[in-house]
């Protein structure tokens, strides 16, 4: 104790515990540093922290020169809601006339018993428990500002009420009828319970009587050392925090005789036995393990896997909307084209769809038709031809927008295509469309009156025609007109054994190409491994089917 580092942080700290709060034990140590005449002579010392340290250092030898008698120093271990009487209370309750409530009488009995046995373990430190009058009063009259008079607001009143009424709150929670969601005539009780937070809270104050020697038992000298609050969820609020290594707290008394006190608060709750803790952990582990097993048994763990060397692409998509078209009552015809090389799709997959016909509504400047049309498909990519240097082509989504009129005539409104996103995740694609156009008013008139117009014979003409062979694609001489756009929302998933390895190596997203390289090597290694496993299994089976004495000849020899 050569130097004292004061802990000036008196804010509250929150702890959580699953154990019953009655196991909570605190050790409070209170010591008088000085009858601080020195502080009065050194007003400068109160400004800087270093100087305060000096100031406190100086009187220390004189303090320790004295016999550390009970009046100067006190240490006590306090349990949760343990009542320690102050000198004031001892004096008060010995007078029977002062006792009004049953609690007062109970205190009187206890005090008389203590006085008889002379075993009062505290002098200066005492407590106010949850049932004490002080606790209610403190909560009610606590001042937050320097205002001369604080009028408690509606909320303050309610909160005080809540805390006081915590005992009979428990029953209420279950009592509210589940079927009635809205109460049209809230009762007084209902309002009290529901207008404020309703976590039941228990409070305890650890106090100190810092009166001068021989003048214990005056209310003015009472100081709060520590406030403890515990709610039913096991949240323990300590204000100020346990001292630990942070050094003691200080109290300077006011008045003529300024005195400096220091105190520490420590958590000395007895820890659970290691074997007990271990058992508890084992029980929990067992419980969680069994729950997990149960869940696994519900689902099964044989997750659907890809063939080695293949990439599976899952697309969950929707045709969301079509906007900006000339005629009303739109429908969208779409399909997915898989590139001819390397891609395949399960036979049952539907790679095309036709939405319903939807009458558009106006949204801002545009007319929008909503489809919310779901589609999902899977396709797999198998890189068989390693020699080919070309980039793997990706599937393409083609769409065609048509309108249907009252006379059941249809008109082509637009063509569009988009390459499916190569990265997994959610994507919103807006596909702008165009339609073939004929020059001249006659064609437009025909389109208006008769319906029908120029159409593409082959939808693949939207991108690269299927029949196209050659070096340059020219569309010269083909006239189109910009029409509206179609919105798709796609959620893509990719699955491959290659990703399992790369994710274990913590490689993050690179280009799909990089990740798929060496597919063929990988698959050949896999094939070798598979063959090895098969051979081994056959050997084991052969072993088991052999007579026992043949397998272990040494044992038969020994016997």
């Amino acid at each position: 104790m050569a130097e004292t580092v004061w802990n000036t942080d008196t804010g509250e700290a929150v702890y959580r515990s699953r154990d019953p709060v009655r196991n909570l034990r605190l050790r409070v140590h209170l010591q008088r540093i000085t009858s601080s005449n020195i502080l009065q002579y050194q007003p400068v010392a109160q400004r800087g922290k270093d100087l305060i340290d000096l100031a406190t250092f100086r009187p220390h030898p004189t303090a320790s020169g004295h016999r550390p008698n009970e009046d100067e120093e006190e240490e006590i271990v306090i349990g949760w809601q343990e009542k320690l009487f102050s000198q004031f209370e001892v004096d008060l309750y010995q007078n029977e006339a002062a006792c009004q409530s049953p609690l007062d009488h109970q205190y009187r009995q206890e005090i008389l018993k203590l006085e008889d046995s002379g075993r009062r373990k505290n002098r200066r430190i005492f407590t106010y428990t949850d049932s004490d009058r002080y606790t209610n009063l403190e909560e009610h009259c606590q001042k937050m500002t320097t205002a001369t008079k604080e009028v408690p607001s509606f909320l303050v009143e309610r909160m005080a009420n809540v805390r006081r009424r915590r005992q009979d709150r428990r029953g209420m929670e279950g009592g509210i009828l589940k079927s009635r969601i809205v109460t049209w005539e809230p009762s007084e009780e209902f309002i009290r319970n529901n207008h404020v937070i309703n976590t039941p809270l228990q409070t305890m104050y650890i106090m100190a009587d810092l009166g001068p020697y021989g003048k214990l038992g005056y209310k003015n000298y009472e100081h709060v050392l520590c406030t403890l609050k515990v709610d039913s969820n096991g949240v323990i609020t300590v204000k100020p925090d346990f001292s630990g290594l942070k050094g003691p707290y200080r109290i300077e008394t006011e008045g003529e005789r300024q005195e400096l006190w220091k105190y520490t608060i420590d958590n000395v709750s007895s820890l659970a036995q290691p074997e007990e803790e271990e058992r508890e952990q084992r029980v929990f582990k067992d419980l969680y393990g069994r729950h997990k097993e149960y869940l696994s048994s519900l689902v099964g763990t044989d997750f659907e896997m890809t063939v080695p060397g293949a990439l599976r692409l899952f697309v969950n998509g929707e045709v969301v909307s079509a906007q900006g078209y000339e005629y009303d009552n739109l429908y969208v015809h779409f399909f997915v084209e898989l590139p001819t090389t390397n891609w395949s799709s399960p036979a049952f997959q539907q790679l095309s769809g036709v939405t319903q016909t939807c009458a558009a509504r106006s949204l801002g400047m545009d007319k929008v038709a909503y489809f919310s049309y779901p589609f999902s498909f899977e396709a797999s990519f198998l890189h068989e031809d390693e020699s080919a240097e070309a980039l793997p082509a990706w599937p393409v989504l083609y769409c065609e927008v048509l309108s249907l009129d009252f006379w059941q005539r249809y008109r082509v409104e637009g063509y569009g295509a988009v390459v499916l996103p190569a990265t997994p995740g959610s994507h919103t694609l807006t596909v702008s469309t165009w339609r073939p156009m004929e020059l001249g008013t006659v064609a437009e008139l025909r389109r208006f009156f008769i319906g029908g117009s120029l159409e593409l014979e082959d939808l693949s003409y939207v991108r690269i025609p299927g029949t196209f062979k050659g070096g340059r694609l020219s569309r010269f001489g083909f006239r189109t007109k910009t029409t509206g756009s179609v919105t798709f929302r796609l959620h893509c998933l990719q699955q491959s054994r290659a990703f399992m390895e790369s994710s274990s190596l913590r490689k993050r997203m690179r280009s799909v190409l990089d990740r798929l390289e060496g597919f063929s090597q990988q698959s050949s290694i896999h094939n070798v491994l598979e063959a090895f496993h098969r051979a081994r299994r056959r050997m084991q089976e052969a072993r088991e089917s052999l007579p026992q004495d043949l397998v272990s000849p040494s044992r038969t020899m020994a016997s």
Partner: protein
Amino acid sequence: MESMAEVHVIGQIVGATGFSESSLFCKWGVHTGAAWKLLSGIREGQTQVDTPQIGDMAYWSHPIDLHFATKGLQGWPRLHLQVWSQDSFGRCQLAGYGFCHVPSSPGTHQLDCPTWRPLGSWREQLARAFVGGGPQLLHGDAIYSGADRYRLHTAAGGTVHLDLGLLLRHFDRYGVEC
């Protein structure tokens, strides 16, 4: 490989905009494929009736909290919605059907789900304008499957807004990138 792939869907149906009707409520449900198992949570529900006071957005803030486990990627959870309106006589009339896939990438997603409703003949349209009512789907599965949609003639409705948070577990062990 003894761990199963799990998906948590946590979020809310925030509300709806763009409907011509005023007092709206929403029935919702989640449909999954055969490989999926709902471990906890409620698969379908219905919101309260909300009457917007300012603007045209009806707020429901209806919670969705689902926990799935799966054996395969097919049949990813899909959310289907039915928006209804209730008039002052307590009659309910259909305002729109909506659909959206539950996203497959982890994180929070703000989804706008547009809706549609069957239009019916011009007589029915006229009747709907004056006395309400109107045709509804005979089988609810047309909302979340596309097979027979081409038979329908519909009108665009409003939009339902959703906030969904996705948590995925153990998908990386099976080589799935999402």
